[in-house]
């Protein structure tokens, strides 16, 4: 073929490819196109379908194994003796060198080990010296879920090596998939991994390269973590640090943004990698779209892009996981937990692996988790969800109506009686009579409304009943009657507010799930009405007004002005303030405060501007602002104890925290008092996997340490 011919063919080919198939023939029918050229174009077009994924790999992937083969041949050490071990087989070949299976040769007992021989690049004087020192530290890392470092040294020709416990197992992601583990099984397995990582962190060892291939699960389902501290050991040589980072001793898919940027690596780095691993085992995907990305873009993706929401990733993936784990199981709490661990800024992740793990346990147990999106609707909806309002919705409505009737009727009777007694005082009597009339009126209206509800159950006599064939659910009735409340109960703000309040409560629950459509709008409608009528009846400042103001915020509205963060904060703060002033023991107060605390990172919710509550005590505790923390604990704890009369681990932990804050301020007598409450309650606590008894050891240690310094 001539080059000039190709120019013409190419031009036509490119034009034709832009056209829809149906229009192509006509295009090629043009008289200016010679038969020869046309045939050539058509011959190429014929391959269009076949070439769909042609050259979709890059050469570097297509040519895998081209290189390792060479190195494997030259590096084979099989049969050689390293220290007390003889190499029997090669296990694999990685970034740092080859890994061999070896057995003990000094005959005392047969033990299989993995020997890691390091590549020559790592064979520097500094690393050799570090080996000796770090060996001692790694040897202290004795944990059943961590593969032990048994020995380290250098061969006769000065090649550094490590002898590790040999682990037979599958990478965690593969294990979960092949054994079709359920969501809870996966979470529990993951938590075991967290325990091991937490143990290492307490020993001041950061892994830096956590990934599924370093987390093997043995046949009996026990996790074993490999290569702890190895990357640190190698990176201790500053000259080689960049090499490790770039060469990929670190696996880019699991690397944290700070690792990629070359910032300092801390325990938060491991928390991030654990987050990616959890993401992977629950969704089968990575949090970022790595497909068709070159390495440079891949790293940029990690540092710059927002991660995919896990529940959406499992939906999008064509993976096995979708058969076992549904998006709805991940939506909400697990999304929040994972996304928190994947925060770009290390300080926004969980502070410790224990906290990460504890949150997962809380999810498993159906308790509210600490991770949440920046919204304060969260706590309220969790509370309702846990208490299964769906089942109770019917009961609530009926009870509230029945209570309404009883109250109305008895008030009417009382008013009548009073009217009789007060007959001698004419003006008084008139007032009382009017009141009695109004109460009677109210009772009638309620009866009528009640009758209307009941008619929904009768498909033969009533249109309402026929509409649902007699099978209306309470929520159907509410949908129908919601807008009639103000017609039926015109002039009865107490009934109006109470009914609107109950309706808002129910729609809050329905905001997610099958009947979510329109629920948000309805919740907002009823919450607004409830608040207005409540004020009409109870005045501007009342316990119930405070409560409805909170409901208004929960429904996504503010008291006045534009709906924005600042006005949310103002409205919520006002509700809290009002509740504190009218009834500080109201059980809504902890939830209101909690909603507030959920948003402390927003500048509008800062503690300088408004009062906060117990959860707000945690940041100042960690920052050493003990006086402030003490104030929050002392304010929050009595409210909590009022609410949870029985044992509650979280509150006991807060008692312990208060004790800690007191000891830090050298308030000895008070410290002893709260410390005893903490200790006694903890020791007598019913078993709870989320709060193992051993967690007190940790607290005790800290406290003991601080007591010693009196």
């Amino acid at each position: 073929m001539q080059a000039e011919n190709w120019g013409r063919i190419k031009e036509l080919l490119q034009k034709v490819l832009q056209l829809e198939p149906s229009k192509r023939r006509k295009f090629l029918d043009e008289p200016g196109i010679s038969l020869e050229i046309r045939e050539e174009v058509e011959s190429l077009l014929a391959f269009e379908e076949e070439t769909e994924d042609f050259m979709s790999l890059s050469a570097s992937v297509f040519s895998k194994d081209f290189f390792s083969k060479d190195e494997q041949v030259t590096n084979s050490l099989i049969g050689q003796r390293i220290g007390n071990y003889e190499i029997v087989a090669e296990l694999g070949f990685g970034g740092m060198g080859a890994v061999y299976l070896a057995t003990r040769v000094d005959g005392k007992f047969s033990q299989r080990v993995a020997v890691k021989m390091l590549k020559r690049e790592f064979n520097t004087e500094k690393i050799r010296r570090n080996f000796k020192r770090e060996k001692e530290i790694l040897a202290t890392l004795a944990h059943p879920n961590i593969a032990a470092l048994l020995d380290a040294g250098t061969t006769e020709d000065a090649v550094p090596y490590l002898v590790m416990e040999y682990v037979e197992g599958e990478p965690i992601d593969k294990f979960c998939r092949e054994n079709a583990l359920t969501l809870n099984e996966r979470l529990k397995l993951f938590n075991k991994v967290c325990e091991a990582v937490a143990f290492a962190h307490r020993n001041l060892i950061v892994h830096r390269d956590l990934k599924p291939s370093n987390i093997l699960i043995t046949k009996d389902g026990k996790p074993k973590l490999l290569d702890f501290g190895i990357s640190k050991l190698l990176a201790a040589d500053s000259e080689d640090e960049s090499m490790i980072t770039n060469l990929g001793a670190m696996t880019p898919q699991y690397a944290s943004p700070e690792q990629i940027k070359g910032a300092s690596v801390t325990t938060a780095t491991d928390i991030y990698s654990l987050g990616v691993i959890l993401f992977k085992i629950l969704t089968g995907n990575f949090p970022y779209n790595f497909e068709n990305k070159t390495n440079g873009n891949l790293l940029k993706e990690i540092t710059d892009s927002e991660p995919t929401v896990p529940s959406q990733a499992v939906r999008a993936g064509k993976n096995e996981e979708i058969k076992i784990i549904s998006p709805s199981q991940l939506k909400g709490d697990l999304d929040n937990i994972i996304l928190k661990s994947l925060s770009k800024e290390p300080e926004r992740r969980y502070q410790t692996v224990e906290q990460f793990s504890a949150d997962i346990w809380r999810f498993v147990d159906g308790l509210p988790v600490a991770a949440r999106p920046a919204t304060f609707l969260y706590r309220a909806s969790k509370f309702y969800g846990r208490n299964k309002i769906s089942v109770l919705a019917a009961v609530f409505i009926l009870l509230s109506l029945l209570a309404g009737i009883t109250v109305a009727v008895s008030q009417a009777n009382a008013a009548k009686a009073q009217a009789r007694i007060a007959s001698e005082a004419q003006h008084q009597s008139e007032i009382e009579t009017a009141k009695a009339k109004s109460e009677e009126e109210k009772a009638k209206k309620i009866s009528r409304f009640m009758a209307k509800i009941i008619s929904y159950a009768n498909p033969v006599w009533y249109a309402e009943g026929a509409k649902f064939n007699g099978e209306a659910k309470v929520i159907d009735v509410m949908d129908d009657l919601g807008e009639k409340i103000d017609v039926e109960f015109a002039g009865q703000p107490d009934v109006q507010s109470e009914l609107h309040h109950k309706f808002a409560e129910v729609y809050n629950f329905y905001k997610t799930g099958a009947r979510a459509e329109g629920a948000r709008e309805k919740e907002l409608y009823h919450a607004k009405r409830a608040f207005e009528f409540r004020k009409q009846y109870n005045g501007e400042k009342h316990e119930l007004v405070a409560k409805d103001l909170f409901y208004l915020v929960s429904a996504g509205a503010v008291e006045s002005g534009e709906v924005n963060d600042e006005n949310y904060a103002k409205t919520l703060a006002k509700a809290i303030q009002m509740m504190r002033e009218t009834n500080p023991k109201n059980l809504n107060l902890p939830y209101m405060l909690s909603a507030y605390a959920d948003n402390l990172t927003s500048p509008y919710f800062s503690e300088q501007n408004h009062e906060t509550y117990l959860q707000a005590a945690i940041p100042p505790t960690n920052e050493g602002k003990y006086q402030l923390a003490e104030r929050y604990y002392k304010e929050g704890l009595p409210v909590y104890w009022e609410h949870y009369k029985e044992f509650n681990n979280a509150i006991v932990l807060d008692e312990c925290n208060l004790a800690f804050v007191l000891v830090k301020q050298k308030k000895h007598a008070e410290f002893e008092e709260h410390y005893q409450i903490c200790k006694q309650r903890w020791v007598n606590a019913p078993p709870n996997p989320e709060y193992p008894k051993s967690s007190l050891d940790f607290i005790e240690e800290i406290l003991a340490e601080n007591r010693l310094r009196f």
Partner: protein
Amino acid sequence: MSERQTSEITQILQDWNDGNEDAKEKLLPFVYDELKRQAGFLMSSERANHTLQPTALVHEAFLRLSEQTGIDWQNRSHFYGIASRLMRQILVDHARLHATAKRGSNAIHFSVDDLQIPVEERAGSILVLNEVLERLEKLDEQQAKIVEMRFFGGMNNGEIAESLDISERTVGREWQSVRLWLYRELNQK
């Protein structure tokens, strides 16, 4: 990399930044070494099993050389272009070591399914591609360059466009059409 080498590369890059085109040539051996070293690591079996991402060695090489020298490099896409060429050379050299037959019985797709094909046969495919590319170079230099950059360099259309100083749209169209031709040439007897 030794200190001496680092300072040498720094100087070369500096010269290149200053517009001295000869510097490009001097850089080749260093880039070649760097690519080869990384290819050895990145294309070892363990690593490649982990990820089927188009690992762009040229990016890695660029990152490493620029980080080592601390130079704010103006000619990134040109560097990628050069590195793609070298990468092709490295892979073809290696393929020669492994290839037992020039053409296997499988159709050549260079897609994920091909990873099941034995190394020897894949190596053969690389050699066949190299020959076809040599023919394409005579027919249409620009298209040959695009194939080299995409396949051997792992570069994306934007980077290729920048390196060749053409529009990204043109790169897309050229690629779309040349693929058909390549496929036919590779797979016809």
